């Protein structure tokens, strides 16, 4: 899945406030946005991009679309995404926060039958440093290189990327899978994508307390991932019962209740350590652990 060679990107909700804020940054990166869709704005031009009322009208004019980025309001996400799947777009990035979980359940059923990859919702999307920005990652945190980043958070992804960049370690791709309760793609799916990505030599997994996705990812890594993985987990000192921010973490913690081992930073750290994955105790330690992992890899190859 080579995002860097994508030629035709569509932005759904280009006339929405979120679209208006982030589209200029995507265009400047430069991301090849060939069409925008915002019902009622058809025929207009925004940031030099032609706007259509319907995706199929856009496809008629600009041809097949490689990926679509969504900035539409939460209750319109399901419909817009189904429209994109019907127009045979197979990579969808949903930036919007607060999509009703049952809408996601419906959307994912459709995505599964059509083999569509969905990132988000409540996600900063994907960046291939120096190549393409499909979402909201701040360009100044990244530089091209060979380390792939997978994260449940937005700002923490930027933080770790910045530490890597400052240490002279560039990144092959970074993805925030999103913070909502039901997500389009999991940590495991992205581990597999980076495992098969030729430009990625090592993977950094950025997790946080709540839910069991890190525990599941740790198990998946020990079974299916050969590339070196380094982890960081945020929230180790947060008092019990005070999950922060992301709906996914909050809901999972709620169902998991308090005082359960699953979902704590400790349980996640243990899961990674059992899988032989070094865990950084702070974002600024990540570069050193990545360096060591790459050196080991070099020695093994040598």
């Amino acid at each position: 899945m080579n995002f860097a060679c994508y030629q035709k990107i569509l932005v759904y909700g280009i006339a929405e406030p979120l679209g208006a804020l982030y589209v200029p940054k995507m265009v400047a990166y430069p991301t090849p946005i060939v069409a925008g869709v915002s019902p009622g704005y058809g025929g207009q031009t925004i940031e030099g991009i032609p706007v259509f009322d319907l995706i199929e009208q856009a496809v008629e004019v600009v041809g097949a679309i490689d990926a679509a980025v969504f900035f539409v309001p939460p209750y319109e996400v399901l419909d817009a995404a189904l429209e994109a799947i019907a127009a045979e777009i197979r990579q969808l990035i949903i930036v919007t926060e607060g999509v009703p979980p049952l809408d996601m359940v419906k959307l994912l059923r459709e995505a599964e039958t059509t083999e569509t990859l969905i990132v988000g919702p409540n996600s900063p999307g994907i960046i291939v440093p120096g190549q393409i920005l499909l979402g909201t990652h701040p360009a100044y945190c990244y530089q091209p290189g060979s380390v792939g980043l997978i994260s449940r958070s937005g700002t923490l992804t930027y933080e770790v990327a910045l530490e890597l960049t400052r240490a002279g370690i560039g990144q092959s791709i970074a993805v925030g899978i999103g913070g909502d309760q039901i997500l389009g793609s999991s940590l495991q799916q992205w581990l597999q994508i980076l495992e098969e990505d030729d430009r990625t030599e090592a993977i950094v997994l950025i997790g946080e307390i709540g839910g069991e996705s890190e525990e599941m990812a740790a198990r998946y890594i020990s079974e299916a991932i050969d590339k070196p993985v380094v982890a960081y987990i945020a929230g180790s000192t947060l008092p019990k019962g005070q999950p922060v921010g992301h709906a996914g973490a909050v809901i999972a913690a709620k169902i998991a209740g308090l005082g359960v081992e699953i979902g704590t930073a400790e349980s996640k750290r243990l899961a990674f350590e059992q899988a032989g994955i070094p865990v950084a105790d702070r974002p600024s330690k990540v570069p050193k652990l990545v360096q060591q992992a790459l050196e080991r890899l070099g020695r093994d190859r040598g």
Partner: protein
Amino acid sequence: MQLLLHLQFQILGTLKKVLFNFLLTKIVTLLKFPESLSLFALFGLKLMDLLEYQAKELFRQMGIPVLPSQRIDRPTDLKGLRIPFPIVLKSQVYIGARGKVGGIRFAENTIDAIAAAQAIFHLPILGKYPKVLLAEAKYNPDREFYLAVTLDSATRCPVLLGSQYGGIEVEAHLQHMRQVIVDQEFSPFYARRLALKMGLQGKLIASVSAVIEKMYRLLVDRDLDLVEINPLAVSANEELMALDGKVTVNDAALGRQPSLAALVAAIPNQPNPNPIACGVNIVELEGDIGVLCSGAGLTMATLDLLQKAKGKPANFVDLGGDYRHCCPPNVLQERLKQGLDLITQTKGVKVIVINILGGVASCLQVAEAIAAFLKWQAVNRQVPPLVVRLVGDQFHAARNLLAAIDVPVFESTDEAIAHTMALVTENANVTGKRSASLMLASA
């Protein structure tokens, strides 16, 4: 690439089957710690349980069997009771195990009922008094089952749960809890599958699966996170009755469920029923460092780093909300001001650390907002020293602007944390000296 995707979906399918033992652990604690729910009203994300009488009204609308009941707002309402004695009076609070502390009482006649109602209205349960009681016909079950429908984020599907050992026994008999993942469009066979897994036979298969189906429809129609019936009473002649129920509303979907929004709004002490509102929330802790960050992940990392450096956060504010439609990021400056205002209202905050990364505002815009806040605050009260971490466009202009008003700006989180800790230590020394000289003076 298509092949690769196909493989991934296959892997996902296998994972779904393997990972379901996690769910059991979840359910244990869902049952054990219902009171934990109140702790989650943070960051504009709320988990809202309806009260029992509201949940039962939804059950009734769906055709799930519930007992004749009546809402009691004051003890004298019992004079106009429309259900026959004997009755059960139940305190309408969000806390489980209310029966153990006297929140559930039986009454044989009006006089007893009024006395019981007065007692319950004056009985705090974990510090909360009920606003409403529920009077319900008394029912003597032969057996009690457990049923629930919820969403699982690991499999990203709705799940059905059931056990023949419901009521207060459910925890002790957790090994009997059965589950069915609804991985395609729902059809009643999923409910029958659960009924069979629960070990039901004969006409109970049809009647229990009919209840499960109605619970599922309720979950979907009303965008709920959880529909639970515990216990589902089974009479000697195998009639079913939902004796207690729980409904958890989904915050994100509340905006398109006006009737639920009205119910939630009527609940006392509930947060704003607006879906994912744009307000800034503060979480109070017990230390002396105020923390303001952008995004949940960075907030958690900053709190971790402070604690590692032996710092004690007094509170934290996550500005977050970059992808919220009601609150576009161009209002970051306004939210920053609100957040700082909340932090400075907490007593005992000695230093405030601000860690902002990403977003569409430039460093200079953030710096200007901080400077404006300080200028505005200077009139009202003394603001503790600030330590600011910024990255991105116009960093140097931002640093110069804030340097002029003695606010240090750093490019890395570690540096900002180190400087914050230096200020805390300095502050402690000053206070130490001050109290030492006070002691001297009083001696």
